[in-house]
């Protein structure tokens, strides 16, 4: 499998997602994705799931001012979801792509 990283990453897209109390799509599936970085700038923990709708208490827990990092070592190009308990989590993200 060829190493997916392209250096430098040609495209960067900043965006923010208000994570709801129901599973919320963070990014859709995107085959050209190279990197994804997100910081929870909200006030409650959110749970991130790759590929399937997010469930409270499962997946990657991102606490307030915690962050998630996706790069060549753990790249996932499918859909990513997030969920939190009361809707007070906000993911500030940057997606890099080809």
């Amino acid at each position, binding site marked *: 499998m060829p190493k997916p990283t392209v250096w430098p990453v040609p495209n960067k897209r900043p965006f923010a997602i208000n994570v709801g109390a129901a599973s919320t799509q963070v990014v859709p599936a995107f085959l050209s994705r190279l990197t994804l970085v997100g910081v929870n700038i909200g006030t409650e923990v959110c749970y*991130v799931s790759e590929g399937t709708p997010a469930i409270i208490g499962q997946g*990657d827990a991102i*606490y307030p001012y*915690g962050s*998630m*990092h*996706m790069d060549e070592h*753990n790249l996932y190009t499918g859909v990513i979801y997030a969920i939190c308990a009361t809707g007070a989590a906000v993911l500030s993200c940057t997606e890099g792509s080809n």
Partner: protein
Amino acid sequence: MRVYNAYNDAALLVLIAALQADVTSILILVTLIEAVTSALPTLSETGGTVTTDGTEQNVYVNAAPLGEYNPICVTINCTAQTAGETIVIRQYYDNVPGGAGAILVDEVTYVGLISPEMLVIDLDPNRYGVWVTIERTAGVARAYIWDVHYEI
């Protein structure tokens, strides 16, 4: 995906807040205790020497205490007295607001050599004044070292 989470210090902050509340309570109690201990009387001492001249002389006088006053005792060192001296020790108090002057409470005469040589005159609490005097009625001038112990 790599995840980095900030240290969750919520529990620590709760403990710190509880500690701060305890410290505040302790400070209040310490302040109260300090007020009590500061008001406790402090034992003090002063003294001097009286050389008798044949008249009634003050040994110790507090003619106008600032308030209720608790003198403990006056000691008079009579080692200088010989068989030829006679002294009279008198004690006076004033109990009139504004001060009416010394009123005799007690009088003791010591003839010749005094044994034991140290006189201890016990004093009582008073508000308006206390006097202890010495008068040589016989013999020659002698020096009597004295001191007084009192609470302030």
